[in-house]
C-alpha cells in the first residue's frame, strides 16, 4: 500500500491522496480550472482597460469570425506538431529541448528544396515536407548518440544545438540566401506551388497534415506493439530491459520521430504562415511545445486539444493587442495564468478533503 501523508488545513479537515480518478472527474476538474483561469484573465483585462462587456464579444469574435477561425487553425498546426514532437520524446524519457533547432533544420531543408528547385512542381511541396522531416530527425541524432553511448545529458546537448542551428540559418539568410529583391535577411519568397494551400473553408493543408500526423501517433502509441513497449521503457527502463525489450532501439526511434515532427513543424510555419524562411519564425515554439506536451500528459489526442487552446489564446491575444492596445506582456500573463490553473488542477485530482474525527 502506498504511504499516505496527512496534513491539516483547518482543525477539522485533512488531506488524503486519491487512489483512482474516473474520466468524469478529470474532465470536471480541468473544466473548472479553465473557468477559474478565464475568470482571473477577465479580471486582469478589465483592470488593463478593456471594457467588460466587450470581452464577451471578443471571445465570441475569435470563435465565430471566419478570419479568426482561419488564423486559429493556421496557428494550431505547427503548435500541434511541436507539441506532438515533445510528447513522443518525453514518452521515451528523452527531454528534447532542441525542438526549435529541429524546426530550423526542417525550415532550412524545405527552403533548400525550394531554392535548388528539387523535384517537379506538382510534388515540390511533398519533397519539401519530406526533406524537412528527414533533416529535423538528423539534427537530433548526434545528441542522442551522445546520451546513449556516453550518458551526456540531452537537456544540454539538444538545447545548445538550437543555437548552432540558428546561427547557421543566419549565415544563410545574411549570405547566400538573402532575398535579392530587397536585400533583407530572409529567403526569397516561396512560389505559389510551394505554399501549403487552404483546402476547404479555412482549413489549411498544414492543419490537415497535423491531424494526419496525430492520427498516426495515436496508432503508434496506443495501438501498436511499439507503443506498448514504449510505456514500459518510460515507466521502468530497468525492467523493460530485463523483459527483453530493445530499450536503446525504442528510445532512439521515438527521438528520431520527435526530431522529424519538429522539422515538419518548421516546414509548416515557413510554408503556410511566413511564405519564406525568416529569421525568427521558430521563436517561442520550443517552450510552447514542451508546455503543450506536459498539459496533454504526452497523449497525442490531448495534444490536439491543448494545441487548439494555445492557438485560440494566441489569436485572441493578437486581437487584444491590435484592437484594445493591451500590451503584449499582459497577453503573455493571461496565457501563463491559464496554464498555471490547468497544471495546478492536478492537485485537486490527486487529493481530497476529508473531515477528521
Amino acid at each position: 500500500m502506498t504511504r499516505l501523508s496527512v496534513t491539516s488545513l483547518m482543525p477539522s479537515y485533512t488531506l488524503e491522496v486519491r487512489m483512482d480518478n474516473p474520466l468524469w472527474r478529470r474532465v470536471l476538474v480541468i473544466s473548472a480550472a479553465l473557468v477559474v483561469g478565464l475568470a482571473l484573465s477577465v479580471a486582469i483585462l478589465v483592470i488593463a482597460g478593456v471594457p467588460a462587456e466587450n470581452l464577451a464579444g471578443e471571445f465570441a469574435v475569435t470563435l465565430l469570425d471566419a478570419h479568426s477561425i482561419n488564423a486559429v487553425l493556421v496557428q494550431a498546426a505547427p503548435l500541434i506538431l511541436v507539441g506532438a514532437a515533445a510528447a513522443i520524446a518525453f514518452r521515451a524519457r528523452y527531454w528534447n529541448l532542441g525542438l526549435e533547432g529541429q524546426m530550423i533544420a526542417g525550415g532550412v531543408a524545405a527552403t533548400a528544396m525550394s531554392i535548388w528547385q528539387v523535384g517537379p512542381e506538382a510534388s515540390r511541396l511533398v519533397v519539401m515536407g519530406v526533406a524537412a522531416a528527414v533533416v529535423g530527425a538528423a539534427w537530433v541524432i548526434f545528441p542522442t548518440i551522445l546520451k546513449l553511448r556516453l550518458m551526456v545529458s540531452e537537456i544540454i546537448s539538444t538545447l545548445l544545438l538550437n543555437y548552432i542551428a540558428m546561427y547557421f540559418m543566419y549565415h544563410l539568410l545574411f549570405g547566400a540566401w538573402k532575398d535579392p529583391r530587397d536585400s533583407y535577411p530572409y529567403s526569397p519568397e516561396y512560389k505559389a506551388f510551394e505554399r501549403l494551400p487552404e483546402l476547404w473553408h479555412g482549413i489549411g493543408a498544414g492543419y490537415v497534415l497535423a491531424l494526419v500526423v496525430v492520427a498516426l501517433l495515436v496508432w503508434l502509441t496506443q495501438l501498436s506493439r511499439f507503443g506498448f513497449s514504449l510505456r514500459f521503457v518510460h515507466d521502468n527502463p530497468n525492467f523493460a530491459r530485463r523483459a527483453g525489450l530493445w530499450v536503446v532501439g525504442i528510445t532512439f526511434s521515438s527521438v528520431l520521430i520527435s526530431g522529424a515532427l519538429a522539422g515538419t513543424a518548421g516546414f509548416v510555419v515557413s510554408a503556410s504562415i511566413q511564405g519564406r524562411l525568416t529569421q525568427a519564425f521558430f521563436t517561442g515554439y520550443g517552450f510552447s511545445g514542451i508546455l503543450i506536451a506536459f498539459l496533454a500528459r504526452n497523449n497525442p489526442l490531448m495534444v490536439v486539444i491543448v494545441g487548439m487552446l494555445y492557438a485560440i489564446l494566441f489569436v485572441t491575444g493578437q486581437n487584444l493587442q491590435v484592437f484594445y492596445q493591451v500590451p503584449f506582456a499582459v497577453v503573455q500573463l493571461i496565457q501563463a495564468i491559464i496554464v498555471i490553473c490547468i497544471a495546478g488542477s492536478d492537485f485537486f485530482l490527486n487529493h481530497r478533503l476529508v473531515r477528521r474525527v
Partner: protein
Amino acid sequence: MTNIAVELSGIRKTFGGFVALDDVSFTACYGQVHALLGENGAGKSSLMNILSGLYSPEAGSIQINAMPLSFSGPKDAVRAGVGMIHQHFKLVDKFTARENVLLALAVDRKKPNTQEVHQKILRLASRLHCEIDPNRIVGTMSVAERQRVEIIKALALGSRILILDEPTAVLTEKEASSLYEVMAEIAATGTCVIIVTHKLRDVKAVAAEAMIMRQGRVVATVDPKVTTTAELTTLTVGTEIPEPRRSTKPSGDCVLRIEGLSGRDDAGPLKGTSLQVRSGEIYGIAGVGGNGQTELVDALSGVGDIKDGQILVGTTSREWTDATRLSSAQLLDLGLAWIPADRQNCALATRLSVQDNYAIAHIRSGIGSRFWINRRAIRKLASQAVAAADVHGVRSLAQWVGLLSGGNAQKLVVERELSRSPKIIVAHSPCRGLDVRAAAAVHGRLLEARDNGIAVILISEDLDEVLAISDRIGVMSNGRIVAEFNAPGDRQAIGDAMVNHV
C-alpha cells in the same frame, strides 16, 4: 501491575471503500514488548500508522498515559512520546549518525547541542550493547547498524513508546537475535516496545503479549510463551498451512553449466563460480547475502558484467549454447526466466496496469501483432493468470500493479515467468517480505515447476527455505560455490560452510 502506555479503542479506518481497520482495540504497557502479528494486509501497519500520527482514524480514540489525544501529524505523535522505526529507514545516507539525530531533534524544534548529542549517542549505544560511532556516515553502515541508529534516534527524541515495523525483514538470523536482546533491554528500562511483524519467530522470541489481526479485525490476544507455533499460524491465517512436501520425482539431464564465472573487477564479488543444474530439480544456493548472489543472478538475466568463465545452456539436441554475454532478450529466447529479488525495480512497471504487467511476457505472441495490440486478449490472459495464481487485491485489471501488496505482486510475477514455459528459472529471494500463506504458494509453484521438468535455481538467505524445497544445495561464499550437499542437508554442516571462508 504495569501501567498502561497506549490504549487504542474502537479504531476504524477505510481507504476509499476498502476497510483497513474495523473496530480495533489495542493496549500496550510500559516495560513490556508487545507484538502485533498478522499477514500482509491484516491492518497492523495501518494501526501503527495511526498511532504514529501518519493517518487519522474515522472513528475511535487514542489514549496515551490515560489522556485522550488526537494527532494532526507525525510531529504531534513524537511530542507525545511515540517513536516509530519504519521498514524503510528515514535516514539521510550522506549524513553521519550524529547529524541524523541532530536533524531529528531540530525538526522537533528542540535546540540540540552537538556535544550533548554526541555523548547521548555513545551512552545509548553502550546501553544497547552495540558500537555506533557517531562520526560515521550512515551510508557506509550495514543495514543492522542503520537500524540501531534509527532506534537511538527515536530514544534520543525521548520516545517512551517505541514501534518497530517488520524490523527483522532486512536482518540475518544472527542480527535478528541481537535485535531481540536490544528490544528486551529497552523494555527493561521502562519503555513500551511494540513490534509489528508477520514472523512467528519474532513473536516467540521476544514478546510478552501478542495481538493477532486478520483482515482488519482483532482475532485474539495471546501469551506467546504458552501458545504453540501451530496455534499461532492457525490464528494468523485462519487455517493450517502445511509446508509443501518435497517431491521425489527423479531429475533429468544437465541443462545449465556455469564454469569459473568471474566478474570484471578483481575485487568484484564473483570469483570463479561453478555449478550444474539438471532439469526437474531445484538447486538451492544458500549463503549470507553479499557473496556474489546478486551478480550471479544478473549474469543469468543478461545484465551482468562478466570477465571470465562461461554460462552454458543445453539445447534439446544435446548441444551447448554459450550464454555468457547474451542480452536479456536472447536469454529469454533460450528458455531462461528469472524472478528478481528487487521486485519494484526489476520485475514490475509499478505505474502500469496489472494486465499489462502480465502481458509483457507474451508481447511477441498471444496478444496481437506488431501493428495492433489486442486489448481483449490481454484482459483475458491476465484475468486467467490472476485467478490461477490466486492474486488478491485486484479490484480491476486496469489498476496500477504498484498498489498490490508484496505477496500478491510476487504471485503475479511468478505466474508470469512460469507462463513463458521456461526451461530454466532463477528465483532470487522469492519469498522476501512475503507472509506465510504467500510464501507457501510461491514454494508450491516452484515445486510444481520442478515436477514439470524445469530446472530451478533458488537463491535465498533464508536457510529454512532452501532446506525445505531444494534437491541439491550449494553454499555460496566469497563469490564461489564452496560446498555442495544433497537433500536433506545437514543444517549444521551447511551453516558452517556458510560462515567459514576457505
